[in-house]
């Protein structure tokens, strides 16, 4: 019999009950909660006179609606404020631990989960948020769910799940200098397409993935959902284990060693068979820039904006034409000639300390270009912000003309006051370039933190390898 994949190992360890039709009742170890997708679930509990099954398995944080300036003043937008206050009230009523807006530990839900050691290897982790796939970087099975399922997990600590198909995406070889985890995952999505992973749990493997830091692996797994996969995962290694030593919610002492012994088993067996295997050559990956309105519309910075006349599939070609119009771009324009109006360094993809270090290293003593109206850095959490300030990164950004903000989702989805105006073009380290994502009519180009920093200084996209 063939060995087991990492996905199968974790899935099997969480089956409470198997139904005849192949659906499993899956136990959920960790449930992260934020203000946007939870109010209707809490309300559902109340209406049915139910209580959370295991309140200690939950951790809540407001992140999508919080302001990134003048936090102590509270939230000006009344609708946003009500949503955040509703989360505070629900957590108080049901006894759920919450890092409220002015808690130093507050931050983007997918940044704080690992940071606190709430995320752990081998666990099942859910959140009413598609980028829950991020946590798979630690050898966990983590995926996003909708509000009805949020309520289901609250009430039962389980979910009804069908086993996903498995895909291995192997990136072999060594990444070139200046090529980061973000470029790897953008290149992967460019290759498999935004629906390429639909129905699959993806395991990222290969020497290039192994050589990434855990933060880099988080960036890769974060965007697994952009490739259509619900879950992305990476096998546990010593980097994973060391990451959790001393984290507040992680086990300590002898219990940590006991856990670590189990965590070391969390990798696919050598003879495991995947339903699909995709291989990329790390050395061939260049820094990436998305040009369109879907993350699969991505090219190397050295390329030109693609021309729909070269696309044989008529539905795709039509999508490309619509994207060019929305993005205000002409086919065949060199990417490096595209000028930008704003820069956003932040989001659960790229707002961890390593990302800020990478961006600051590129900024150096440079200044934000005159044509860039706003360049902002939004750390992923209060602790990331504190660490960055400790290292003096805030000074580098501020000296260059960046704004240094308080943590939250911010202009990744523009639910708070941070947004693009119609027609504005942004170099963004976030994960989605959908129409209107960063503000109605706004134009998003997805890039790595280093590429975003380089674009801020140059005023247009540049190849970070040659600056």
């Amino acid at each position, binding site marked *: 019999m063939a060995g087991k994949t990492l996905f199968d190992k974790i899935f099997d360890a969480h089956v*409470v*009950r198997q*139904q005849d*039709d192949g*659906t499993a*009742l899956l*136990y959920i170890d960790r449930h992260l909660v934020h203000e*946007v*997708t939870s*109010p*209707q679930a809490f309300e559902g509990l109340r209406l*049915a006179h*139910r209580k959370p*099954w*295991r309140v*200690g398995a939950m951790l809540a944080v407001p992140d999508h609606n919080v302001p990134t300036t003048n936090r102590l003043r509270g939230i000006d937008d009344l*609708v946003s404020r*009500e*949503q955040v206050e509703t989360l505070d009230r629900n957590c108080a009523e049901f006894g759920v631990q919450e890092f409220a807006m002015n808690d130093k530990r507050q931050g983007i839900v997918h940044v704080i989960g690992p940071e606190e050691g709430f995320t*752990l290897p*081998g666990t099942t982790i859910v959140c*009413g*948020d*598609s980028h*829950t796939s991020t946590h798979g970087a630690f050898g966990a099975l983590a995926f*996003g*769910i*909708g*509000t*009805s*399922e949020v309520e*289901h997990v609250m*009430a*039962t*600590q*389980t979910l*009804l799940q*069908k086993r996903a198909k498995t895909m291995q995406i192997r990136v072999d070889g060594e990444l070139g200098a200046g090529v980061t985890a973000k470029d790897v995952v953008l290149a992967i999505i460019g290759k498999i397409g935004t*629906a390429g992973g*639909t*129905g699959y749990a993806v395991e990222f493997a290969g020497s290039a993935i192994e050589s990434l830091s855990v933060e880099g692996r988080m960036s890769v797994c974060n965007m697994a959902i952009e490739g*259509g996969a*619900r879950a992305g995962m990476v096998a546990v290694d010593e980097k994973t284990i060391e990451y959790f030593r001393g984290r507040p*919610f*992680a086990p300590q002492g002898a*219990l*940590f060693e*006991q*856990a670590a012994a189990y965590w070391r088993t969390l990798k696919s067996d050598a003879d495991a068979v995947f339903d699909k295997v995709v291989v990329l050559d790390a050395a061939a990956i260049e820094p990436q820039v998305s040009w369109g309105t879907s993350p699969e519309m991505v090219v190397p910075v050295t390329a030109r904006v693609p021309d729909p006349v070269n696309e044989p599939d008529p*539905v*795709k070609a*039509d*999508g490309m034409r619509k994207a060019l119009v929305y993005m205000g771009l002409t086919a065949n324009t060199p990417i490096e000639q595209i000028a930008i109006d704003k820069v956003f360094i932040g989001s659960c993809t790229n707002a961890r300390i390593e990302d800020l270090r990478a961006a600051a290293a590129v900024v150096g003593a440079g200044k934000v270009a005159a044509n860039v109206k706003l360049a902002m850095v939004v750390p992923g959490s209060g602790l990331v912000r504190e660490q960055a300030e400790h290292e003096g990164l805030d000074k580098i950004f501020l000296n260059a003309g960046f704004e240094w903000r308080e943590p939250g989702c911010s202009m990744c*989805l*523009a639910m708070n006051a941070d947004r693009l105006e119609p027609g504005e073009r942004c170099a963004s380290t976030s994960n*989605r370039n*959908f*129409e*209107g994502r960063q503000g*109605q009519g706004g134009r998003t180009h997805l890039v790595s933190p280093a590429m975003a920093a380089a674009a801020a200084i140059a005023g247009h996209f540049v190849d970070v390898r040659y600056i």
Partner: protein
Amino acid sequence: MQAFNTFTGIVAPLDRANVDTDAIIPKQYLKSIKRSGFGPNAFDDWRYLEPGEPGMDHSQRTPNPDFILNQAPYNQATILLARTNFGCGSSREHAVWALTDFGFKVVIAPSFADIFFNNSFKTGLLPIVLPEEIVSELFKDVAANTGYQLTVDLENQELKKPNGETIAFEVDSFRKHCLINGLDDIGLTLQHADDIHAYEAARRQSAPWLFLDQA
């Protein structure tokens, strides 16, 4: 959840691939803490000429005349016909709530994003996956016949065309059962509470570090 019965409805064609949940319901409307009232803002950016914010009187905004759902009879449609990877992007169930609130009961597409697909069943919206060629045929049928209607028979898992032709579709048996009977799956799961307790007890032995909250 309301039980899903056989019905006949108008099919609205939304001819683009990768329709994402940000397009189905833009983020500013996610600030609502309710589960209803999203219908007027389904496809908000495509549907109106001015930008929209929550709390506005949306009936006073200018509908975009080019957008299909603003055109009669498609403003009365209950079946949405779409292209590949419908519902990609965020996990927001608000996207499904917006579609059902608009009046849709069924979405037909060659493929759906996983989370959207799951969310649909929870809110009584039936996502039907059909092969690309059949979907393309349907787009042609709709283009050729204004007000084109299909009958959706979930019990027998088939769509019936006006000419009597039928198209079979697949649906997971458990989900079909829940839809047809309008069942709340939390209630169903809690029938297995003993199994969940037993699992937890065993897991607390094998992986005690996961139960620090109960130590």
